[in-house]
């Protein structure tokens, strides 16, 4: 079998990615004129916050995916591992964008997104005063730099390791060493991931929007949300490349496992969603229920149920059958649905804080989201075209080629 080793970006792919980025920039300009230029830019910045954080976390989830599988000695993903690596390169540009947006929100002083920024209010408020050591601009900035910086650096290192053996077939001993080295770096990334995405970072970026409220499930919940959407993103790129005639060794066995991942982590997301919701609902303590007051009982009730239907019921019922996980059309449909569903999930995480009375969702939000989609497409496409699509000297490659579920 002759392999098409290098991805050549088709003209239409380029047009689409630039077109979508154009839509994003246009939305940004229109949004700035409509919402951002005023004294209060909350609407404008909240949209940027939601979209940048969401797309940063889902591209970062691709990184988590291959590091977790490396650590677990997984071999089945190797036929399409370069795709996950390519998606993870988007962490760098989107990370920079996110950082700029976060800094504008924290130091720009034009929003009411983070209530802990208001020094006068904090000094009068016992709860916020107690959280001052954690919720302050310095800590926020340092942690954002560390999060995004180390994700990017460890990502670069992992990708370098992967490419370093492209031209050098390994002996058994060298292979063992190579796997060990990979494991070490993947483990470092996972540790940093646990300290950021799975704990502190969502507290700072998203949970502190409702600064009085806290939930110990929150970071896990955010992680689950971004991870499902990340897997869906990987799946979409894999299917796209298959359709273009690349990734010859990837077949419906791999698709089946990606579908299983989406199915399993949709259930995991629901588990965390429910654990967070049910305990607060059952205990019925006003400090805690305040978070669900707007979402479950207020303006966001539609988003609340839609979120549950798209992210739980649809994957549960549609992905349950073996056949649907092996069907390219179903999996494509579900992946798009899941990416949208978790985008909506992030939407209610961000917007129900500063806008408790109405849902301000409109074309501006979708425009910005499409801009980020274009950016991810462009960045991933460029990264894919630079390096061979198959890590052909990886010791576990055969395991992936004969993978059978």
């Amino acid at each position: 079998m002759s392999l098409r080793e290098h991805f050549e970006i088709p003209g239409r792919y380029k047009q689409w990615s630039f077109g979508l980025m154009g839509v994003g920039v246009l939305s940004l300009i229109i949004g700035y004129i409509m919402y951002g230029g005023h004294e209060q830019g909350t609407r404008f910045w909240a949209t940027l916050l939601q979209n940048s954080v969401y797309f940063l976390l889902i591209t970062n989830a691709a990184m988590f995916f291959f590091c977790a599988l490396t650590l677990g000695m997984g071999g089945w993903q190797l036929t399409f591992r370069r795709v996950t690596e390519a998606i993870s390169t988007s962490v760098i540009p989107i990370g920079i964008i996110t950082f700029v947006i976060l800094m504008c929100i924290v130091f720009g002083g034009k929003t009411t997104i983070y209530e802990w920024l208001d020094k006068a209010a904090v000094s009068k408020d016992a709860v916020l005063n107690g959280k001052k050591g954690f919720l302050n601009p310095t800590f926020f900035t340092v942690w954002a730099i560390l999060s995004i910086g180390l994700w990017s650096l460890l990502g670069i290192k992992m990708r370098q390791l992967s490419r370093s053996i492209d031209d050098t077939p390994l002996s058994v001993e060298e292979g063992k060493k190579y796997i060990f080295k990979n494991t070490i770096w993947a483990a470092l990334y996972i540790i940093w991931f646990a300290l950021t995405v799975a704990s502190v970072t969502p507290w700072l970026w998203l949970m502190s929007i409702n600064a009085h409220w806290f939930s110990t499930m929150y970071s896990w919940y955010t992680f689950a949300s971004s991870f499902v959407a990340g897997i869906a993103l990987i799946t979409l790129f894999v299917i796209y490349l298959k359709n273009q005639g690349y990734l010859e060794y990837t077949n419906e066995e791999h698709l089946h496992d990606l579908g299983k991942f989406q199915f399993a982590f949709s259930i995991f997301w629901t588990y965390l969603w429910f654990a967070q919701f049910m305990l607060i609902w059952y205990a019925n303590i006003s400090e805690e229920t305040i978070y669900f007051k707007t979402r479950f009982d207020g303006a966001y009730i539609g988003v609340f149920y839609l979120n549950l239907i798209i992210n739980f019921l649809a994957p549960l019922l549609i992905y349950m059958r073996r056949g649907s996980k092996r069907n390219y059309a179903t999996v494509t449909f579900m992946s798009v649905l899941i990416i949208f569903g978790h985008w909506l999930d992030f939407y209610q995480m961000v917007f129900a804080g500063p806008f408790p009375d109405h849902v301000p969702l409109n074309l501006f939000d979708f425009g910005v989201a499409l801009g980020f989609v274009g950016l991810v497409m462009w960045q991933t496409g460029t990264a894919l075209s630079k390096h061979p699509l198959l890590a052909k000297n990886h010791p576990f490659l055969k395991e992936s080629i004969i993978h059978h579920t």
Partner: protein
Amino acid sequence: MAIKKFVVGCFDDEDVLFPAVKKVRSAGYKIHDIYTPMPIHGLDKAMGLRDTSLHTAGFIYGITGTTTALSGIGWIFNKDWPINFGGKSHFDLPAWIPITFELTVLFSAVGMVLTFCYLCQLAPFVRRHHFNLRSTDDQFTMVIECTGKTNEASLEAFLQSIGAKGINVQHAETGWWLGSYANDKKPFESKAAVTV
């Protein structure tokens, strides 16, 4: 429950077994079953077996559990013995979900185990004929059922030609019977040796 005649071919290598299965099937012989010491990936496909319906059964047991839980709790808390829990409504679905989940899992798990035992006909004191005891150790045993038209001699020669290491003919009971391994009485006459 019927005694039938089988031609048994024993293989000692997976790599020989797979092409042999293909050849036996394309020659038109009817494979009764293949007994192996360990699960072999892809053998079910090679034999042309259909997918198991165990998962469909599992789904049905699962929704039975869901329905049982919801209707049970619903009836108890709304009709039979309504209790006021912290001012919550009697129909408070979120509080029921954990129990519903547990019952769904319980029903599907227990149901699937029992169905699995039924499908494989596994139970205490239920005995079945073993064609080759070494198929629990190091041999792959292919059992071909003889029909009225089967020519045993040519089938044996055919098995020989595709790599079977030991070949014999057995008359065996196809169903199960009650008995114990310690005190086994075989309900068929032919006690063909099963050693290879």
